[in-house]
């Protein structure tokens, strides 16, 4: 299915889908008739079961989205039922474009997985040409002759280039070599100045993850008053205006405007109040100042945000002792090592389940100290079993995270896309997680 810009799931390979019980423990889907993979194999219920079983057993992050799946049953040539061991309202999101579990692979290729090292065997509108592709540099795609909806194929050939230097990428667009690109917050202003169409919607919670909530490595962080003080000491709007050119991208909570969990009241409750921050530090016994070690990395502008935050925290007597990881791998390894009590964070927001998988779950990588909060667990249990509108319980989860100051959110950083004049088809909103379906890029 496709998560549309309005936040509604639309049929794609599955024409009918959803939970059929009152506890989000049984999910059924019906597949589109007559669909084939690019290798000519039919896409039927058996093929989808083979794909899902394969994904579940692979050591990848996709398998994490299916950990609650207990059994997959083929109930007809084009219909399946998925039984869950625990309530899980997130299967629609897992199957849509953001996570991509629904990008079904042909069972023929799954039987010989080495064919997937350099090739593709999916059911999408394009397929890879391995001999014209260079791993990590160039990927050439041509139309899939078996695609079920030829009207969605707009190009005879699509070449995806990896341009590691973001400034070079902007110049490549200006020179007419590149027509569409995935941007980032560090080049958005330059891209707009260069006359490139910038499509962006907030997606990432960017700030500092206050991970050591029991004070195992950094005693001050074990005191919730210190964590709250940090949140009140930062003028997020000023940082958003300075770094992203837009003060409205400031973020004080764990959901974005448009999400079910968003509550405007929390912005005020967690707002900038340096006097309150000083008072909280005084109450916690750190009136003379405190030093907090923080791990950061030069990725998505995280290091810049941490430096900006450090400048503001210094005003209330908090010193950030910043360690910058050499690269992304070193950052993730350092973050999960349990040696760093706080770390820069860039985390994609969506539903409260999205937040649960990596951030709230004590096994999640962004919760390396394994913090458990009983009230939060109780709220999540209620949320997972809620069928229908989950806004109320999602907002209460959000409020609990703000109250316990699990992190120091600073920006709702956008995921951005750049398009040259004459092209359309990208709709990036908070509703679709700012992840459009790129195959829909087409002449205006």
């Amino acid at each position: 299915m496709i998560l549309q810009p309005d936040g509604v799931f639309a049929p794609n390979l599955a024409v009918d889908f959803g939970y059929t019980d009152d506890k989000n423990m049984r999910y059924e889907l019906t597949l589109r008739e007559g669909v084939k993979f690019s290798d000519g194999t039919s896409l039927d219920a058996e093929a989808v079961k083979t794909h899902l079983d394969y994904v579940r057993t692979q050591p990848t992050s996709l398998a994490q989205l299916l950990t609650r799946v207990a059994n997959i049953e083929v109930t007809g040539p084009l219909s399946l039922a998925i039984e869950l061991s625990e309530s899980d309202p997130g299967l629609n999101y897992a199957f849509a474009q953001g996570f991509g579990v629904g990008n079904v692979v042909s069972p023929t290729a799954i039987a010989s997985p080495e064919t997937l090292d350099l090739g593709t065997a999916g059911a999408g509108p394009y397929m890879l040409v391995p001999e014209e592709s260079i791993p990590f540099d160039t990927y050439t795609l041509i139309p899939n002759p078996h695609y079920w909806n030829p009207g969605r194929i707009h190009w005879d050939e699509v070449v995806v280039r990896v341009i590691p230097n973001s400034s070079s990428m902007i110049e490549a667009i200006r020179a007419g070599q590149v027509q569409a690109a995935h941007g980032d917050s560090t080049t958005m202003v330059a891209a707009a100045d260069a006359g490139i169409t910038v499509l962006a919607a907030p997606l990432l919670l960017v700030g500092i993850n206050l991970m050591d909530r029991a004070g195992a490595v950094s005693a001050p962080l074990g005191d919730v008053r210190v964590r709250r003080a940090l949140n009140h000491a930062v003028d997020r709007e000023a940082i958003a205006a300075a770094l992203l050119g837009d003060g409205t991208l400031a973020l004080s909570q764990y959901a974005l405007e448009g999400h079910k969990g968003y509550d405007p009241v929390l912005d005020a409750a967690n707002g900038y109040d340096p006097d309150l921050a000083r008072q909280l530090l005084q109450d916690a016994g750190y009136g003379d100042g405190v030093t907090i070690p923080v791990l950061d990395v030069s990725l998505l502008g995280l290091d810049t945000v941490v430096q900006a935050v450090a400048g503001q925290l210094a005003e209330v007597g908090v010193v950030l002792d910043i360690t910058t990881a050499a690269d992304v791998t070193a950052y993730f390894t350092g973050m999960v090592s349990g040696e760093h009590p706080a770390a820069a964070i860039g985390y994609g927001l969506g539903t409260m389940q999205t937040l649960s998988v990596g951030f709230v779950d004590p096994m999640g990588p962004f919760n390396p100290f394994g913090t458990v909060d009983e009230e939060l667990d109780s709220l999540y249990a209620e949320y997972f079993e809620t069928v229908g509108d989950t806004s109320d319980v999602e907002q209460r989860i959000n409020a609990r995270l703000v109250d316990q100051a699990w992190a120091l959110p600073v920006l709702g950083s956008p995921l951005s896309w750049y398009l040259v004049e004459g092209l359309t088809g990208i709709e990036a909103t908070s509703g679709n997680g700012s992840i459009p379906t790129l195959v829909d890029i087409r002449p205006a």
Partner: protein
Amino acid sequence: MAFLPGDAAVSLVGRNATEEQLKQVREDLGLEQPVWAQYGQWLEGAVRGDLGNSMINRQPVTAQLNGRLAPSMSLIVGATLIATTLGVAIGILGAQRGRIGRVIDSGSIGGLAVPDFWLGLVLIVLFAVHLGWFPPTGYVRWNEGVGPWMRSVALPIATLSVPATAILARQTREAMSTALSKEYVRTLRAAGIGECSILFRHGLRNAAIPVVTVVGLVFIGSLGGTVAVESVFAIPGLGSTAVHATATRDLPLIQGVVVYFTLIVIVVNLLVDLAYRYLDPRLQSATATDGAFANSGAAP
């Protein structure tokens, strides 16, 4: 690399992986074995010409690096040729005129001080965006057309050439100044030998050995320069592969890049040594004499 934080398993499985998943992948990749055991296995294959498979995409390292050798060598050879031509010419010119020499010295320092990633971006803006003469990024294989290939490597070569030219100009000027100040040059001039002949037949030949040494060093130095330049111009060469492999902790690929770089350095040093023999007849006669002594010493 083995002692840096993180490994290929983290890159492969992603940040949401559990410890169990990471353990399984580490076992599959052989990362659970001691470093010396991993190295021993790799060495055993390497001596047979098998550099193993990438941990990330499981493709043979040799095949991947062979495909990336041509882009890097295009840049390095091109930059060395241009730097040698321009650097030697500027150096000879500077050796004759005092004021030009000072200008060349200043220019050399400027050329060395310019960061290559910055220079690359400036050249892209000027020659690709505004003038449209060259593509801003990417590499076209020579068998897809010599013209497009030359256009694709022109700006990266120019970027790599600037510091190399600066080094060679300065070295050539000093070597030529030294050669031209020798007694025999005065004698040649007194004998009425033409200035061109003095410069090129006598002066340059005598100055050539230090210059050739620096040409070799420039070539080897350009290997390091490709790391930044290939990233700026998005060229799939050895330098960008080294960056990518390091970021993903792809140990076999990193080891492969090191082997390729080492082989290139050995070949270049060998060529430089052979050039010494060609440029300085005394080395040839010394070797011949050594051989004659050795032969006579071995005789009963």
